[in-house]
């Protein structure tokens, strides 16, 4: 399970303008946009700093090549470490205040990221399709399931924060027109699958396993809409028990981790091309971070189609789902809380704010690219988009390591067989339906998204 601060804090009032600096989502957006603006500023003054700090460890067969690369890039490694450390420390200071522990924990995480990247670039690992994303995950899982993770390290395992930052940076490499065009297709496709999966889990949970309706809805939301975010949003909306929300979250994480391994294997076995593969992962995976790990195990195109499907097609619409569920809860299930009428404002409150950063990043780069001639356009690619993409890859490596290091499978599996079975029924519908839509019916469309 993930890190949770043991420090007892008094409850403070929620909401208001302070969300802008008290929510992880906003910090992912602020930091992501800061990085993009820095890249633009450095390029505009002719400074090569951004290209200097990004490391792209080359594929090698002789370990001396890797050692030589690292020793010749010592300063850049240090600069990259300090770059991330300074940015993340600002956010951590405001969000949790535990900067000192984070500093130690992040130093360890960064060092492990370098080691895993070097190991994953070895041609033997590539030959067995065991590249950096899966390797980071496995290394993390082995450590966390056999050793006790110290508290100072736990403070640096901010999986959600890293993946949200990565997704904001991802916006810089996706033209805004593509987000609009592909986003509508993704939404239509994702909605069909989400509805089928939601109804399956809800029906199985309530009718076959006699689970409480609110519990079943919380489970169904996690398995169909957008993972943990959906479970906590719907859980609150329908006033589910805390234990039930915790179980739903555990199941989402458990199945997400299983899917990181199953989906890339199935994609390779079925010879699915990267575009449709990413779209399939986008509907089949339950959470952003594990989905990104599965997509990164394929290639860059799969990362793009995954992001369009998961973030644009699913995550953005969580507020609307909540609104519908709130109405259902009050009008159909139980009138005890008739006073808590759903408010349309909740759609905005539930909106994942880091997606705004993703969209703004895309708009900034799209405008910049549109106003450039051929030569400038190439310079933008080389000096802005490429270094941002490399920094994004580092954010994802921190994500994959954090998933592994914070997931203790024994604890995740201790949820009871009934909710597990109901959730699994949804998985059995979600996976083939996603394959049918993303690969068989819409495959030719997703191939063209690059």
């Amino acid at each position, binding site marked *: 399970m993930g890190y949770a601060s043991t420090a007892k804090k008094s409850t403070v*009032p929620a909401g208001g303008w302070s969300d802008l600096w008290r929510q992880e989502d906003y910090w992912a957006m602020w930091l992501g946009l800061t990085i993009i603006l820095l890249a633009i500023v450095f390029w505009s003054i002719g400074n090569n700093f951004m290209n200097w700090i990004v490391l792209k460890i080359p594929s090698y067969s002789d370990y001396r090549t890797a050692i030589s690369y690292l020793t010749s890039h010592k300063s850049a490694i240090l600069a990259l470490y300090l770059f991330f450390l300074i940015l993340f420390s600002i956010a951590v200071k405001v969000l949790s205040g535990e900067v000192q522990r984070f500093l130690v924990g992040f130093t360890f995480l960064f060092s492990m990221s370098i080691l895993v990247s070097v190991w994953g670039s070895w041609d033997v690992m590539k030959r067995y399709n065991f590249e950096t994303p899966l390797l980071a995950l496995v290394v993390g899982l082995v450590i966390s399931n056999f050793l006790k993770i110290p508290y100072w390290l736990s403070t640096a395992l901010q999986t959600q924060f890293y993946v949200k930052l990565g997704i904001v940076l991802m916006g810089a490499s996706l033209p805004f027109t593509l987000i609009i065009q592909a986003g509508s297709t993704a939404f239509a496709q994702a909605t069909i699958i989400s509805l089928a999966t939601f109804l399956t889990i809800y029906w199985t949970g309530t009718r076959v396993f006699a689970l409480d309706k609110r519990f079943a809805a919380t489970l169904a939301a996690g398995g169909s809409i957008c993972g*943990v975010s959906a*479970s*906590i949003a719907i859980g*609150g909306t329908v006033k589910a028990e805390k234990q039930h*929300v*915790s179980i739903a979250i*555990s199941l989402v994480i458990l199945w997400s981790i299983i899917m990181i391994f199953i989906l890339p294997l199935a994609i390779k076995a079925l010879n699915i091309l990267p575009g449709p593969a990413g779209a399939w992962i986008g509907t089949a995976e339950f959470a952003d971070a594990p989905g990104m790990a599965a997509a990164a195990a394929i290639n860059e195109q799969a990362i793009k189609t995954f992001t369009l499907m998961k973030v644009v097609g699913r995550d953005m619409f969580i507020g609307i789902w909540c609104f519908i569920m709130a109405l259902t809860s009050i009008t159909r299930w139980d009138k005890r809380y008739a006073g808590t009428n759903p408010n349309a404002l909740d759609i905005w409150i539930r909106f994942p704010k880091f997606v705004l950063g993703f969209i703004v990043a895309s708009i900034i780069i799209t405008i910049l690219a549109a106003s450039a001639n051929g030569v400038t356009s190439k310079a933008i690619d080389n000096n802005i988009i490429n270094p941002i993409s490399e920094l994004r890859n580092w954010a994802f490596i921190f994500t994959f390591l954090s998933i592994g290091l914070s997931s203790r499978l024994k604890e995740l599996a*201790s*949820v009871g067989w009934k909710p597990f079975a109901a959730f699994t029924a949804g998985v059995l519908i979600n996976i083939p339906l996603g394959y049918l839509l993303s690969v068989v019916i819409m495959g030719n469309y997703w191939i063209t998204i690059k």
Partner: protein
Amino acid sequence: MHKDNETCVQRARFFFYFFEKPKETPPFDQIVKVKQVKPEAIRNLNKFLTSRLERIATMMELLTEVHKDWAITGKKDYILMETESYDFNASLQILKEHGFDDSEFILKVEYTRKWGVL
């Protein structure tokens, strides 16, 4: 599920509105924008507010006696009590045991993942 394995934080939010009770016609309906307001309507408002404010104060006392960690915010037309460390079902039970029903408050429940949970 063991408490240490919980993956979310629950925030219970109780809204106590001064001038209306959910599911009840507010006394202001006989006053605001009404021509020829009757003195009786003012007396009704007085009775309503006296009783309503007393009951809100009692509910606040009950909740703060049973649990200390509440963020209490006063707004122009309601009191908001929020806690992240006391289950909403336990709060509901206390209020109901003392004769307060669901029409006397609005309860909203919000969950957030524990900081760092995937």
